[in-house]
Structures are given as structure tokens and as C-alpha cells.
């Protein structure tokens, strides 16, 4: 025990004696760090932004300073203690000064960078962890992450249901108004069906009817009423034989449906045989539905898919909307909101901000699946004045894709392949009142090397105000033991 106390004391003295280098030569640049957290705006409730210093050196000293707080960390891996981090954040502006000793034992001080503390963010997010793949799947899980710390839990994993021979795919989790008592995700193939949590109760439905193309795919939960808009898709994939883009994904047919939760009934929103409608998104008042569509007038039959792959570069999806009366479930006429084709572009994944003022979407040269296109970027529409702009402050040389607005509309979270071109990672950015985004920063991880080491991809990130209350075991037991209830078909109203 004596020895232990002595060791602790020595360690304590050593730690407290960590000296900030006094004699240094300045370097007129911020240090290269991973993830790049230099000069970012961060939520007031975010977990510590740990990072690794990428500059070569013999020794490293990092000084993280708030108004009255100071943390000194040695080593190239900068892990900020949680308690100190909370105190630092309270100061509003955190400055990080990095000192590096080179081979000649000379210290260099780099230009400090800052973390600007801003609005709160929803405390939880969820995402699907998937292996990068083309057709196969084996282990898929929907995870929830507490943003205020590093705790990650599994919401559900397909390995809890599938057998050796019968695979189960899970995808497209979604929440009604950021709460988890009303949520859904799809289970495909073995024990398939859409798992709906309605006021905390589990249900499993099969939305495929004789009059619709497929079960529901990309969902958009109506904010005020018991409806869910979904796309119906028949999706195909093909491999680029020699390109930095690895994969091309397209639907040879797609429609939009509306699922009436109370009546377990499906009705058509759009199913023009020449249109490939996709990605429904409600406005916050639930009186308008945005979606994208492309008019394809090619033939049907066996060759359709191959012809479409050959003609893929001509697929320019435009942005449309339809008004909707939720009380009577009546649709208004279709309106083109943005003619992307005119710009030789294709627009996908429209999502409206919680204040209804902006719409953020992906834009690329062609096609419907931006994740697999290096050129995919963000475009933002001002719904008040109809203007739009490419969001250069978010875009990278690699693909930007699925994005989600925080419930207070102050943050967006998006998936991007900016780190290596293949593995999708989650980034956050703050939006100010003028609609400008701050420099994006990666989801903080306890180990700053995590994003580099992790060989899986993050997919479909969604904000949540609370954790999911149903346990994975409850989900597994329910999915395994319950047959999906078939939805009935209802005719469309309006227009």
C-alpha cells in the first residue's frame, strides 16, 4: 500500500510538473490534427473533442484553455478529461495551443485554434453500422449514441434474428418528431416487415399490397398526424469497372405511398409509370410533401435495368412538392420546385429545417443514390425567397449524403466519405441565422484514432431527443415471434 501511495504521489508530481515550453519558435500555422477540429463551432453539450496531432515530433504538449480553466496534455493523442471539458465549455470559447519538440530538441508553438461553444444539440443520435458492401450483408446494427459522452448502445442488430441460411436486413430507422416512442425501421427477408413503435407498443406490418410496388422504403413520418410517407423502390446495383466511384445504385421503378397508421392502410401518393419518385420529406406543419422524381420513358421488361444503367448519366432528378391536407388526407397538385435537370444535375434527399425556412438536399451530376457518387454535394434552398446555393462550407471532394436537422434547427448532422472516399463518417455543423454553416467536425470519439481504425460505415444518421426505451432483446423477441400484419390498400384522395 505504501508503494502504491508513493507511486501515485510521484505520478501526481510528474503530472503537475508538466511544463509548458517557454522557449519556443512560432509556427505560422495551426497544427495538422485528426479529426480536423481546428476552429470549429461545437454544441454546449457535446462530448470532448479528442484528437491526434499529426505533425511529426519527439514530444507534444497541448494546452487547452478556457477563461479560467487550463488543461495540459502531453503526447500526440490529446484526450481531454470529461470533467475538465465540461468546465472548459462553460467559458464559451476554448483555445488549443500545441507545442511540438522536434528532433533537435527545439520546441515549436503552433498557431492556436479554437472551439467556439454554441447552441445545444439533441443529446442522442442513431445510425446504422454497416460493412461497406455491394450486395452481401451479414452484421447490421442500429446504434444509438449519447452525444454528451461516448456511450453507444445497440438499438437492434439483425444477428439477433437471422439464421445461418436466412439473412435479415435492417434499414431506414426513423422517428416521429425526434422522440422514440414512435419510431420505425424495416426488416427485410427473414422475419421481414416494418417494425413500428407506436406510443411505445411494438407492431410489425407488411406495407406491400397488390396495388403497390413494394414494401415501404425511405420513410417520412408526418409531424402532426398518424401518417407516414414512404417510397417504394425496386433497387439495383452495379459495379464501376474502372473508376474512383465504386458502385452505381438505381431504381428501375419507384413510387410514393402514404401509410395510414390508424387504419393500417396504404394509399398511393405518386405512381406515374414514367416517373421515378423518391425521398419524401414533410414540411414541419405537415401540409406539404417534398420529393424528387425523374421522368424515364424507356422500355419495360428484362432489358429495362441494363438500359437504365447505360443511360444512368441522363438521370436528373428534380425537386417536386405536393400540398396535403392531413385532416382529410387529400393531396393537392404536383409542383416542380427545382429543375435540376436544367443544370445537368440531380437532386436527392430533400429535408426541411424544423423552422420550415430551409431545405437541404444533395446534388450530384446524375442518379438517385448520392452516397456512391464522389461528386455528391449539398445544396440549400431558402424556402422563403426561393433562392438556393451550393453549401461550399460543408462540401468536400468526396461524397456528402444523408443528413438530418437537429430538433432546434441549429445543427445538421450528415454522412460523408471525406476521410477516405469509402467509409462513411458522421459530421456536424452549426447553422447561423443567416443560413451559413460552420466548419463541419467529426462525431467525437473517445479514441481519436477511431474513425481511421473503424472499418465499418455509419449510415442514416438521425437525431433523437431521448434514447430508445425498447431493449434489443425485446425487439429481437418480437421480430422473431410476430408475423407482419398485411396493410390494406386505400385509394388516393384529391387532385
Amino acid at each position, binding site marked *: 500500500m505504501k508503494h502504491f501511495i508513493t507511486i501515485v504521489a510521484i505520478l501526481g508530481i510528474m503530472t503537475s510538473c508538466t511544463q509548458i515550453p517557454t522557449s519556443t519558435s512560432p509556427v505560422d500555422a495551426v497544427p495538422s490534427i485528426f479529426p480536423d477540429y481546428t476552429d470549429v463551432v461545437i454544441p454546449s453539450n457535446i462530448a470532448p473533442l479528442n484528437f491526434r496531432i499529426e505533425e511529426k515530433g519527439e514530444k507534444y504538449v497541448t494546452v487547452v484553455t478556457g477563461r479560467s480553466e487550463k488543461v495540459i496534455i502531453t503526447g500526440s493523442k490529446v484526450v481531454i478529461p470529461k470533467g475538465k471539458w465540461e468546465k472548459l465549455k462553460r467559458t464559451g470559447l476554448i483555445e488549443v495551443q500545441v507545442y511540438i519538440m522536434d528532433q533537435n530538441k527545439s520546441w515549436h508553438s503552433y498557431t492556436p485554434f479554437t472551439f467556439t461553444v454554441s447552441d445545444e444539440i439533441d443529446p442522442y443520435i442513431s445510425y446504422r453500422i454497416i460493412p461497406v458492401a455491394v*450486395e452481401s450483408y451479414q452484421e447490421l446494427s442500429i446504434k444509438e449514441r449519447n452525444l454528451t459522452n461516448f456511450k453507444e448502445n445497440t438499438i437492434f442488430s439483425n444477428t439477433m434474428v437471422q*439464421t445461418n*441460411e436466412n439473412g435479415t436486413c435492417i434499414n431506414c430507422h426513423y422517428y416521429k418528431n425526434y422522440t422514440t416512442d414512435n419510431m420505425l425501421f424495416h426488416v427485410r427477408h427473414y422475419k421481414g416487415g416494418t417494425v413500428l413503435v407506436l406510443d411505445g407498443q411494438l407492431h410489425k406490418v407488411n406495407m406491400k399490397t397488390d396495388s403497390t410496388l413494394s414494401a415501404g422504403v425511405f420513410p417520412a413520418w408526418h409531424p402532426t398526424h398518424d401518417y407516414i410517407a414512404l417510397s417504394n423502390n425496386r433497387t439495383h*446495383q452495379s459495379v464501376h*469497372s474502372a473508376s474512383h466511384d465504386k458502385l452505381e445504385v438505381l431504381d428501375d421503378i419507384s413510387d410514393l405511398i402514404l401509410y395510414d397508421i390508424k387504419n393500417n392502410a396504404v394509399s398511393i401518393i405518386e405512381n406515374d409509370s414514367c416517373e421515378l419518385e423518391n425521398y419524401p420529406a414533410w414540411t414541419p406543419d405537415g401540409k406539404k410533401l417534398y420529393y424528387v422524381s425523374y421522368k424515364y420513358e424507356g422500355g419495360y421488361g428484362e432489358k429495362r435495368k441494363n438500359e437504365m444503367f447505360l443511360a444512368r448519366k441522363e438521370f436528373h432528378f428534380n425537386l417536386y412538392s405536393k400540398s396535403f391536407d392531413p385532416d382529410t388526407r387529400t393531396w393537392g397538385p404536383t409542383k416542380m420546385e427545382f429543375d435540376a435537370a436544367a443544370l445537368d444535375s440531380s437532386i436527392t434527399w430533400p429535408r426541411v429545417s424544423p423552422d420550415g425556412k430551409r431545405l437541404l438536399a444533395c446534388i450530384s451530376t446524375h442518379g438517385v443514390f448520392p452516397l456512391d457518387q464522389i461528386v455528391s454535394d449539398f445544396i440549400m434552398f431558402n424556402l422563403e425567397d426561393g433562392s438556393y446555393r451550393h453549401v461550399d462550407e460543408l462540401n468536400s471532394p468526396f461524397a456528402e449524403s444523408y443528413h438530418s436537422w437537429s430538433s432546434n434547427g441549429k445543427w445538421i448532422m450528415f454522412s460523408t466519405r471525406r476521410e477516405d472516399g469509402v467509409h462513411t463518417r458522421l459530421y456536424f455543423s452549426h447553422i447561423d441565422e443567416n443560413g451559413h454553416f460552420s466548419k463541419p467536425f467529426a462525431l467525437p470519439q473517445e479514441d481519436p484514432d*477511431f474513425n*481511421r481504425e473503424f472499418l465499418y460505415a455509419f449510415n442514416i444518421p438521425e437525431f433523437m431527443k431521448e434514447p430508445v426505451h425498447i431493449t434489443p432483446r425485446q425487439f429481437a423477441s418480437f421480430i422473431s415471434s410476430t408475423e407482419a400484419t398485411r396493410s390494406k390498400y386505400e385509394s388516393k384522395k384529391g387532385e
Partner: protein
Amino acid sequence: MTVCENSSFHAFYNEKRGKNAIFGAISYMHARANIRYMTKVTTNKSIRLSEQLLKYIPILFAVILWCVLSFREQFFLKKVEDLSVFLFDKLFIMDSFKTPGGFLGLAGSFLTQFLFIPWLGALIWIALLLLSYYLTIRTLRIPERYRPIALIPVALLVIGNMSLGYGVFIMREQDHFFAPVLGYLAALIPLFAIKRTQTVASKLILLTIWTAIGFPLFGTFAFIGTLTAACTTFMDQEMLRSKRLTILAVSLALIIFIPLIAYSFYTSYRLVDSWHMGLPSISDDQWTFAIRTPFQLALLFLPVMAIASRRLKETDSKNIIFQTSVYVISATAVWGFWFKDDNFRTELAMSEAVDRFEWQEVVDFYRKAVDAHVKSDDKAYDDRTAKLKGVKDQDTRNSIIDSFSDRFFEPTRTMVLYRDLALLKMNRALDEAFTMKDGSRMQKSRTIIPMVWQSGKQFYLQYGLVNMCYRWCLEDVIEHNWSYSTLKYMVMHSVIMQEPELADKYINKLRKTLFYRKWARQQDALKSDREKMSAAEPYNSILPYMCFDNHMSNDMMKTETYLINHFLEKEPVSATPEYDRAALLFAMHIQDIPLFWERLFYYINSNNLKVLPRSVQEAALLYSTLEKDGRQLPLDDKVRESYNEFNRYVQNHPIRSMKESEYPYCQKFGKTFYYFYYFMRDLKTY
């Protein structure tokens, strides 16, 4: 027995009986009695000697096993290693514990990496098997005369691994080679411990702790340990029956309820699979059952033996026949279930050489396989001829011929494609490919393993279809887990595509391995230096094939078909000589005459040849004759001569059925394109 007169025998006798006995042995009767006794002693001596020798049989088996593994199955062991991975990496280690039996998986993967040096890996594995043998005897207190019984689970563990065959390509677990023997050893741990506890309470506490901790670490193997320890205690006659029953009942309850409780902490498997955790599996249920059976039987041996060993009495006499029988049965079973397919072995050898880009070795392995079967093919032909003698009915003849088909050597498509790839890389394909035996022997596998799992990424990378290579690396990871092999091919894909950030990801992983870190460092230097990369192996021989325009494609898991379509359907804007050589080779393989002429034209243009390779001349002559197009071809006289000879032979030896005539024609014209054209038809790929 004549030896009784021997002086040494007398000396032995003297020593045993003492001098007084000799002095008293003066009468004839005494002499006879002594002779009988001496005979008995001699027999006992030889029995003792035999018993002494029998003791060393397990060691002898181990030595033989090591030799066979090191010198005959080295490529199988290398493949096991190649398809596994162990990383000195926090994420990898944490990931291992996401299912029960995580420690076993980790330890198994750790040891599997030593199969990189097959003799070393084999040595470690055999040492563990021997340890299992001796610890089984010790923990279960198996009487000396019954000790060979302990070889049975060891034999089952050997069978489990060495009967795997093509299953190695689709195994889900990276630890499958070492985990069973490690699990078996782990199952013996509670047996050691329980013997050192005295009270019922302490035994119960021990079993509870073991099962609760053992399940996350060793999976189902922990339950076997619990059950065996409980059975051992149950057979302890010194303990009250009620106490013994209590321990057994609690143990069974632990085995049932611990997984139910543990399931709340895991999200990676189904509850019903709790009692299989740690055992190997593949996506085919029946095959999984077959793979697991030897291991399960080995594990079942422990509780059964725990009960039985108490009934086995130690006696002075040792039953040599019994012991020998156990040894013989064990050895026979191991040999009987051992996967012994020459084509499989050749494929593995060729694959390993392809990974090292040792193209001449690839071809040598192919030739060796062909040459190794010359005598057996002759014998098969003679036997078949004898059986066909006098049989007139063609259907009967055909059925006899079919019954012999397995006795003739025929390569698999994977072997043929490896051979062609190697020859193309050495620019000898159009000279030599059709001089070697071709064929499409199906894998001797429970279910056909598509070529794409076995060798797809190798072919795709080497033929410049790097994205398809990458795609199948990704699919392989999902279906069969990470491996050194996939990581290496992912690195090569990223390096050749000059995607340094992506290359970094995989290079960093390989840097955390024991045997691939040097290779990873080499790739690191190439990842963003196009000039260096273009000059380095294997990229210098892949880049010439990457002369095609990007297009969308899907191989539908048919590698050979996809390669054919790739080379023959698309016409690159600026084809290289290497590309045109491959395209012509594939055109000749599919025996499509218009495509041959088309590709020949491109080939001649890009390769600037003065003399066409012999096989190409033969194909040109054959096709020209068949089409009667009257082409004026610049052919060697020898080619025309051989074609005329072929035609004369056909006239003199009419073909009754292709299958029947295949062998004699092969003997005479097996190295010509004519033979290939007429006899190598309907080759099936997979």
C-alpha cells in the same frame, strides 16, 4: 521356443530366480518346468516392450502428423492463415468479445497467424493436441491400460480440421483451426479446480463462477467443462448421493440459465445459438453440422469419460490388443476423413504462388499435377479398356466410361485459370496454354464453392478489374470475415487506384500484424507515388490490362464468364499488347471462330509479331479449314504437317464417342489446339 537354450536367457533366468533355483534345477522335470516359466517370462518381456512402445505411439502419431502437415499440407495451412486475421489492435480485440467465446476466438486467431510458417503453426497445433491428450488422461484419471482412449478426442479434433477441404474458403470464424483444441483444453480447467475443493458449497461456487466467466471467454466449451466437472463429482462415491445430485442439478441449471442471463448483455446472436457459441460455422446449415460434429463428439467425450473412467479398473495386465485397436482405429479414422484431393492441393499451391506473383511456380505446380497422374491415367485407361472389351452396346460402354471418369486426371477451372494467368504474365500463354491438359473437374466439395470466393479477387486484380476485386474483398469480409488476404488485396486495389487515404486504412491494419507489417510498409511508399507504383510488382503487370473505359458491370458470381465477357465484349480504345493477348486467349478458349479472327487481328496489330505462336497457328489453320474461307495464312510447315496427321488419325481411328476417344487422342494430340477444339467442349465453370 528355441530361445530357452540360449545363454542369455539363462542369465536372465538366473537373475530373476536366484542362484539357488539353478542349483536345484537338476532333474528333467525341473528343466521342463523351467522352460515353461522361461517362455512365460520371455513373453512378458516382449509384452512389456510392446507396452513401452505403445506408450510412445501418441508421440509417433504427433511426429507423423507434423511431417504430413509441414510437407504435404503446407499450402492448406497457409490458406487457413491467409483467410484469418489477428491484429494487435484495440478495436480488433474489443470486437472479439462481442460474442461469447471471445477469448477463444482471440487466442485462436493469435495462434493461427503462426501458420504463416506452416511447420511452426503445425508444431504449435500438435503441441496443443498432445497437451490435450495428456491432460485428458490426468484430469479424468484414466487408468493406464485405457490411456489410448484419450487419443479419441484428439483424433476427432484432427478430423475436424483436416476434413474441412473447400470449406476453408467459406468459414465464418477466423480462429476455426485453433479454437476447438483451445476450447477443449479450457474445458479441462474446472476439472483441475474442482478436485481441489472439498465442500459442496465451494464446488458449487466454483462451478458457478466458472460457468459465468467461462461462457463469455470460451463459449460452449465452458459448459462442457462445467458438465464434465459435475460428472466427475457425481461419480465420487465418497460423497453423499444427495450432495452429488445437488451438484449435478445445479450444473445443469447453470448451463441452461447462464446463457439466458448473459443474453441481456449481448446483441450479436440469437438466444437459441447460445449453446453453440465458439463452434465453427458457415452459411450452409448441413455443412455446419458436418463441420461441428467431430468437435462436438470430442467435447462429448469429456463428460462421458468422466462417468466411465471411474468404472475402468486399473489392473496389472495391459491389453495390448485393446490399446492397439484404439490406436489403429484412431489413425484410420483420421486418414479416412482427411480431405485428400489432389486438385484442391494443387489449387492451394498455385494460389499461394499467385499471391507471391511467382508465375513460373504457378505453371510448375500445374505441370506437376499433370505429370503426377500419368501412370494412374494409363492404369485407368488399361482397366477401362479391359472392361470395355467385348461390350458392344454403346449405352453400356458409356456407363462404363462414366464410371471410370473420376480415375482420370482432370484439372478444375480454377487451376486452368491460374495457369493461363501465369502464362499470360510471362507472355507464354498463346504458346503453351493449349499444350497442357485442360478440363473442368468439379470440386470435391459438399457444395460447390463459387470461384469468386476462392480466387475471384486474385483474377480480378491481376486482369486489371480492380474495382471488381475490391467489390469481392468487401463481400468476402461480410460473408467470411476479415482476413490478411482481403486486407492485402484491398491495399493493392487502393494503391493501383492511387487512393492514398483508403490505402492507409488497410495498410495501418496490416502494420498491426506480425508477418505483414514489412509488406505494408512497402505499399505505404507506393500509395501516392504513381511512378514508383507503376514500376513495382505486381502493379507493373496489372496496369497494362487497365486500358479499358469504365463501364457498369456485375459478374453474377461467375468469375470466368465475367472475364471472358470483359475481354471479348468490350473493345478498349487503346488496347495494350497484354490486353490483346489475353483477349485472344479467351477467344480461343470459348472456341468462337468469328471472335477468334477479330481478336487475332487486334493481337497481331498490337504485338508486332513476325511468327504467330504455335497454338494460334493451329487454331487459325483449323478454323480456316472449317470455314473453308481459303485464307492465306503464314503458317509453319510443321503446323500443317501436324494438322494433316491429326486428320489422318481421325480417319483411321474413328471416334465412337468423345469420352471414349478422349484419352487416346490426348496421348497423341493432347498438345494441339485441334485436340482442345474437339475434345474440350462444354467445360463448366462455377
